[in-house]
Protein backbone atom coordinates (compact mmCIF):
# COMPACT_ATOMS: atom_id res chain seq x y z
CA UNK A 1 0.00 0.00 0.00
CA UNK A 2 1.25 3.44 -0.85
CA UNK A 3 -0.20 5.47 1.98
CA UNK A 4 0.47 9.09 2.86
CA UNK A 5 4.01 9.40 1.71
CA UNK A 6 3.35 13.06 0.89
CA UNK A 7 6.06 15.58 1.45
CA UNK A 8 5.49 18.03 4.30
CA UNK A 9 5.96 21.63 3.19
CA UNK A 10 7.21 23.83 6.03
CA UNK A 11 5.13 26.86 7.12
CA UNK A 12 7.90 29.33 6.33
CA UNK A 13 8.16 28.03 2.73
CA UNK A 14 4.40 28.54 2.27
CA UNK A 15 4.60 32.01 3.83
CA UNK A 16 7.42 33.00 1.49
CA UNK A 17 5.47 31.79 -1.55
CA UNK A 18 2.52 33.92 -0.40
CA UNK A 19 4.75 37.00 -0.15
CA UNK A 20 6.02 36.46 -3.71
CA UNK A 21 2.44 35.95 -4.95
CA UNK A 22 1.31 39.20 -3.30
CA UNK A 23 4.25 41.08 -4.76
CA UNK A 24 3.40 39.75 -8.24
CA UNK A 25 -0.24 40.82 -7.77
CA UNK A 26 0.82 44.39 -6.95
CA UNK A 27 3.27 44.30 -9.86
CA UNK A 28 0.59 43.24 -12.36
CA UNK A 29 -1.72 46.04 -11.16
CA UNK A 30 0.98 48.72 -11.43
CA UNK A 31 2.22 47.51 -14.83
CA UNK A 32 -1.25 47.41 -16.39
CA UNK A 33 -2.15 50.83 -14.95
CA UNK A 34 0.07 52.29 -17.66
CA UNK A 35 -1.66 51.99 -20.98
CA UNK A 36 0.72 49.70 -22.79
CA UNK A 37 -1.82 48.16 -25.20
CA UNK A 38 -0.74 44.70 -26.41
CA UNK A 39 2.36 44.74 -24.21
CA UNK A 40 0.12 45.02 -21.14
CA UNK A 41 -1.70 41.76 -21.93
CA UNK A 42 1.58 39.93 -22.48
CA UNK A 43 3.03 41.13 -19.17
CA UNK A 44 -0.24 40.41 -17.30
CA UNK A 45 -0.35 36.87 -18.70
CA UNK A 46 3.34 36.25 -17.97
CA UNK A 47 2.86 37.35 -14.36
CA UNK A 48 -0.35 35.29 -14.02
CA UNK A 49 1.52 32.31 -15.49
CA UNK A 50 4.32 32.72 -12.93
CA UNK A 51 1.78 32.95 -10.10
CA UNK A 52 -0.02 29.86 -11.39
CA UNK A 53 3.28 28.01 -11.58
CA UNK A 54 4.07 28.90 -7.95
CA UNK A 55 0.61 27.76 -6.76
CA UNK A 56 0.91 24.46 -8.66
CA UNK A 57 4.50 23.85 -7.53
CA UNK A 58 4.35 24.74 -3.84
CA UNK A 59 0.72 25.00 -2.68
CA UNK A 60 -0.40 21.99 -4.74
CA UNK A 61 2.83 20.13 -3.91
CA UNK A 62 3.62 19.24 -7.52
CA UNK A 63 7.31 19.72 -6.77
CA UNK A 64 7.16 16.61 -4.60
CA UNK A 65 4.70 14.54 -6.64
CA UNK A 66 5.49 11.61 -8.91
CA UNK A 67 6.92 12.23 -12.35
CA UNK A 68 3.77 10.72 -13.89
CA UNK A 69 1.53 13.35 -12.30
CA UNK A 70 3.85 16.21 -13.21
CA UNK A 71 3.94 15.05 -16.84
CA UNK A 72 0.13 14.76 -16.87
CA UNK A 73 -0.28 18.33 -15.57
CA UNK A 74 2.23 19.63 -18.10
CA UNK A 75 0.38 17.80 -20.90
CA UNK A 76 -2.92 19.48 -19.95
CA UNK A 77 -1.31 22.90 -20.41
CA UNK A 78 0.31 21.80 -23.68
CA UNK A 79 -3.10 20.54 -24.84
CA UNK A 80 -4.68 23.87 -23.93
CA UNK A 81 -1.94 25.82 -25.75
CA UNK A 82 -2.59 23.71 -28.87
CA UNK A 83 -6.35 24.40 -28.64
CA UNK A 84 -5.71 28.16 -28.40
CA UNK A 85 -3.25 28.06 -31.28
CA UNK A 86 -5.62 26.12 -33.56
CA UNK A 87 -8.57 28.39 -32.69
CA UNK A 88 -6.59 31.54 -33.46
CA UNK A 89 -5.19 30.13 -36.71
CA UNK A 90 -8.79 29.38 -37.67
CA UNK A 91 -9.90 32.93 -36.83
CA UNK A 92 -6.93 34.59 -38.51
CA UNK A 93 -7.33 32.79 -41.87
CA UNK A 94 -11.08 32.62 -42.11
Amino acid sequence: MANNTSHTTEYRVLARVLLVLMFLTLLTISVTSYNLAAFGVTVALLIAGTKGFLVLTYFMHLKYESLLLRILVALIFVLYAVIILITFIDYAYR
Partner: protein
Amino acid sequence: MSEKIPHIEAHRDDDAQKLGMWLFIFTELLLFGGLFLVYSVFRAKYPANFHEGSLELSVTIGAINTIVLLISSMTVAMALTAIQKNNQKLAMIFISITLFMAAAFLFNKVFEWGAKFEHGLYPGSKLMPLLDRGHLLYFSLYFFMTGLHALHIIVGMVLLIICLIRVKSGKIHFQKYTQLENGALYWHLVDLIWIFLFPLMYLIT
Protein backbone atom coordinates in the same frame (compact mmCIF):
# COMPACT_ATOMS: atom_id res chain seq x y z
CA MET B 1 7.04 11.57 11.70
CA SER B 2 6.23 8.71 14.01
CA GLU B 3 6.26 5.16 12.65
CA LYS B 4 3.32 3.77 10.75
CA ILE B 5 1.24 0.79 11.81
CA PRO B 6 0.39 -0.85 8.50
CA HIS B 7 -1.38 -3.97 9.80
CA ILE B 8 -4.34 -2.10 11.31
CA GLU B 9 -4.97 0.10 8.25
CA ALA B 10 -7.94 -0.79 6.11
CA HIS B 11 -7.24 -1.34 2.43
CA ARG B 12 -6.73 2.00 0.76
CA ASP B 13 -4.60 3.66 -1.87
CA ASP B 14 -3.93 7.35 -1.21
CA ASP B 15 -1.97 7.90 -4.41
CA ALA B 16 -4.89 6.67 -6.51
CA GLN B 17 -7.30 8.94 -4.59
CA LYS B 18 -5.08 11.89 -5.28
CA LEU B 19 -4.67 10.95 -8.95
CA GLY B 20 -8.46 10.81 -9.21
CA MET B 21 -8.70 14.33 -7.76
CA TRP B 22 -6.13 15.57 -10.26
CA LEU B 23 -8.05 14.04 -13.17
CA PHE B 24 -11.13 15.92 -11.97
CA ILE B 25 -9.05 19.11 -11.71
CA PHE B 26 -8.00 18.62 -15.36
CA THR B 27 -11.66 18.63 -16.44
CA GLU B 28 -12.20 21.81 -14.39
CA LEU B 29 -9.20 23.47 -16.01
CA LEU B 30 -10.53 22.64 -19.46
CA LEU B 31 -14.02 23.87 -18.49
CA PHE B 32 -12.64 27.29 -17.58
CA GLY B 33 -10.13 26.97 -20.42
CA GLY B 34 -13.02 26.84 -22.88
CA LEU B 35 -14.45 30.04 -21.40
CA PHE B 36 -11.06 31.75 -21.54
CA LEU B 37 -10.90 30.72 -25.20
CA VAL B 38 -14.26 32.38 -25.94
CA TYR B 39 -13.04 35.40 -24.00
CA SER B 40 -9.79 35.73 -25.96
CA VAL B 41 -11.47 35.43 -29.34
CA PHE B 42 -14.02 38.15 -28.53
CA ARG B 43 -11.44 40.32 -26.79
CA ALA B 44 -9.32 40.15 -29.95
CA LYS B 45 -12.42 41.11 -31.96
CA TYR B 46 -13.68 43.95 -29.71
CA PRO B 47 -10.57 45.25 -27.85
CA ALA B 48 -11.96 48.77 -27.26
CA ASN B 49 -15.31 47.55 -25.88
CA PHE B 50 -13.57 45.10 -23.54
CA HIS B 51 -11.31 47.87 -22.27
CA GLU B 52 -14.29 50.19 -21.62
CA GLY B 53 -16.17 47.35 -19.95
CA SER B 54 -13.29 46.63 -17.58
CA LEU B 55 -13.27 50.29 -16.49
CA GLU B 56 -16.71 49.65 -14.96
CA LEU B 57 -15.14 47.19 -12.51
CA SER B 58 -13.38 48.24 -9.32
CA VAL B 59 -9.72 47.22 -9.47
CA THR B 60 -9.53 47.78 -5.68
CA ILE B 61 -12.23 45.21 -4.89
CA GLY B 62 -10.68 42.82 -7.43
CA ALA B 63 -7.23 43.26 -5.88
CA ILE B 64 -8.58 42.77 -2.33
CA ASN B 65 -10.31 39.57 -3.45
CA THR B 66 -7.10 38.37 -5.11
CA ILE B 67 -5.12 38.90 -1.89
CA VAL B 68 -7.92 37.25 0.15
CA LEU B 69 -7.85 34.16 -2.07
CA LEU B 70 -4.04 33.98 -2.06
CA ILE B 71 -3.99 34.08 1.75
CA SER B 72 -6.73 31.43 1.94
CA SER B 73 -4.73 29.24 -0.42
CA MET B 74 -1.71 29.49 1.88
CA THR B 75 -3.72 28.77 5.05
CA VAL B 76 -5.29 25.63 3.55
CA ALA B 77 -1.81 24.44 2.54
CA MET B 78 -0.71 25.17 6.12
CA ALA B 79 -3.68 23.15 7.45
CA LEU B 80 -2.28 20.16 5.57
CA THR B 81 1.20 20.80 6.99
CA ALA B 82 -0.32 20.98 10.49
CA ILE B 83 -2.16 17.66 10.11
CA GLN B 84 1.00 16.03 8.73
CA LYS B 85 2.78 17.25 11.86
CA ASN B 86 -0.03 15.73 13.95
CA ASN B 87 -1.29 19.11 15.16
CA GLN B 88 -5.06 18.68 14.97
CA LYS B 89 -5.95 21.95 16.67
CA LEU B 90 -3.72 24.09 14.44
CA ALA B 91 -5.11 22.35 11.36
CA MET B 92 -8.65 23.25 12.45
CA ILE B 93 -7.62 26.87 13.01
CA PHE B 94 -6.10 27.06 9.52
CA ILE B 95 -9.16 25.51 7.86
CA SER B 96 -11.37 27.97 9.76
CA ILE B 97 -9.27 30.92 8.58
CA THR B 98 -9.60 29.60 5.01
CA LEU B 99 -13.38 29.40 5.39
CA PHE B 100 -13.47 32.93 6.78
CA MET B 101 -11.46 34.19 3.79
CA ALA B 102 -13.81 32.37 1.42
CA ALA B 103 -16.79 34.07 3.07
CA ALA B 104 -15.02 37.44 2.80
CA PHE B 105 -14.46 36.81 -0.92
CA LEU B 106 -18.15 36.05 -1.45
CA PHE B 107 -19.16 39.09 0.59
CA ASN B 108 -17.07 41.33 -1.71
CA LYS B 109 -18.52 39.58 -4.74
CA VAL B 110 -22.11 40.18 -3.59
CA PHE B 111 -21.24 43.83 -2.97
CA GLU B 112 -19.61 44.11 -6.40
CA TRP B 113 -22.41 42.37 -8.28
CA GLY B 114 -25.00 44.34 -6.29
CA ALA B 115 -23.55 47.63 -7.59
CA LYS B 116 -23.88 46.32 -11.17
CA PHE B 117 -27.45 45.13 -10.55
CA GLU B 118 -28.40 48.58 -9.22
CA HIS B 119 -27.31 50.07 -12.53
CA GLY B 120 -29.55 47.57 -14.31
CA LEU B 121 -26.59 45.55 -15.46
CA TYR B 122 -27.29 41.84 -15.02
CA PRO B 123 -28.04 38.89 -17.30
CA GLY B 124 -31.58 39.18 -18.61
CA SER B 125 -31.98 42.85 -17.68
CA LYS B 126 -33.69 45.35 -19.99
CA LEU B 127 -30.45 47.28 -20.38
CA MET B 128 -28.22 44.41 -21.51
CA PRO B 129 -29.63 43.91 -25.05
CA LEU B 130 -29.28 47.67 -25.71
CA LEU B 131 -25.50 47.56 -25.21
CA ASP B 132 -22.99 47.39 -28.05
CA ARG B 133 -22.15 43.87 -29.11
CA GLY B 134 -18.66 44.08 -27.57
CA HIS B 135 -19.98 45.43 -24.26
CA LEU B 136 -22.70 42.80 -24.18
CA LEU B 137 -20.14 40.04 -24.74
CA TYR B 138 -17.81 41.47 -22.10
CA PHE B 139 -20.48 41.68 -19.40
CA SER B 140 -22.02 38.33 -20.31
CA LEU B 141 -18.59 36.71 -19.99
CA TYR B 142 -17.90 38.68 -16.80
CA PHE B 143 -21.09 37.47 -15.11
CA PHE B 144 -20.78 33.91 -16.38
CA MET B 145 -17.11 33.42 -15.55
CA THR B 146 -17.08 35.14 -12.15
CA GLY B 147 -20.45 33.49 -11.39
CA LEU B 148 -19.12 30.02 -12.21
CA HIS B 149 -16.03 30.83 -10.16
CA ALA B 150 -18.18 31.94 -7.20
CA LEU B 151 -20.08 28.65 -7.48
CA HIS B 152 -16.74 26.87 -7.18
CA ILE B 153 -15.98 28.94 -4.07
CA ILE B 154 -19.24 27.71 -2.51
CA VAL B 155 -18.48 24.08 -3.43
CA GLY B 156 -14.93 24.50 -2.05
CA MET B 157 -16.38 25.88 1.21
CA VAL B 158 -18.67 22.84 1.55
CA LEU B 159 -15.70 20.49 0.98
CA LEU B 160 -13.60 22.36 3.55
CA ILE B 161 -16.45 22.32 6.10
CA ILE B 162 -16.63 18.52 5.66
CA CYS B 163 -12.83 18.37 6.12
CA LEU B 164 -13.09 20.54 9.25
CA ILE B 165 -15.73 18.24 10.78
CA ARG B 166 -13.68 15.16 9.94
CA VAL B 167 -10.49 16.64 11.38
CA LYS B 168 -12.43 17.48 14.56
CA SER B 169 -13.89 13.98 14.85
CA GLY B 170 -10.45 12.47 14.23
CA LYS B 171 -11.41 10.78 10.95
CA ILE B 172 -8.70 12.81 9.25
CA HIS B 173 -5.45 12.45 11.18
CA PHE B 174 -1.70 12.50 10.64
CA GLN B 175 -1.68 9.03 9.08
CA LYS B 176 -4.79 9.49 6.97
CA TYR B 177 -5.25 12.91 5.47
CA THR B 178 -5.85 12.39 1.74
CA GLN B 179 -9.37 13.86 2.03
CA LEU B 180 -7.95 17.10 3.38
CA GLU B 181 -5.25 16.98 0.72
CA ASN B 182 -7.89 16.64 -2.01
CA GLY B 183 -10.07 19.35 -0.46
CA ALA B 184 -7.03 21.61 -0.40
CA LEU B 185 -6.25 20.77 -4.04
CA TYR B 186 -9.77 21.86 -5.01
CA TRP B 187 -9.33 25.10 -3.09
CA HIS B 188 -6.01 25.80 -4.83
CA LEU B 189 -7.75 25.22 -8.18
CA VAL B 190 -10.26 27.94 -7.28
CA ASP B 191 -7.33 30.24 -6.47
CA LEU B 192 -5.53 29.26 -9.67
CA ILE B 193 -8.54 30.19 -11.83
CA TRP B 194 -8.91 33.56 -10.08
CA ILE B 195 -5.21 34.31 -10.72
CA PHE B 196 -6.10 34.38 -14.43
CA LEU B 197 -9.60 35.86 -14.08
CA PHE B 198 -8.40 38.93 -12.19
CA PRO B 199 -5.99 40.41 -14.79
CA LEU B 200 -8.20 39.35 -17.70
CA MET B 201 -11.40 40.88 -16.33
CA TYR B 202 -10.18 43.86 -14.30
CA LEU B 203 -6.91 44.95 -15.88
CA ILE B 204 -7.61 45.30 -19.60
CA THR B 205 -5.40 47.91 -21.21
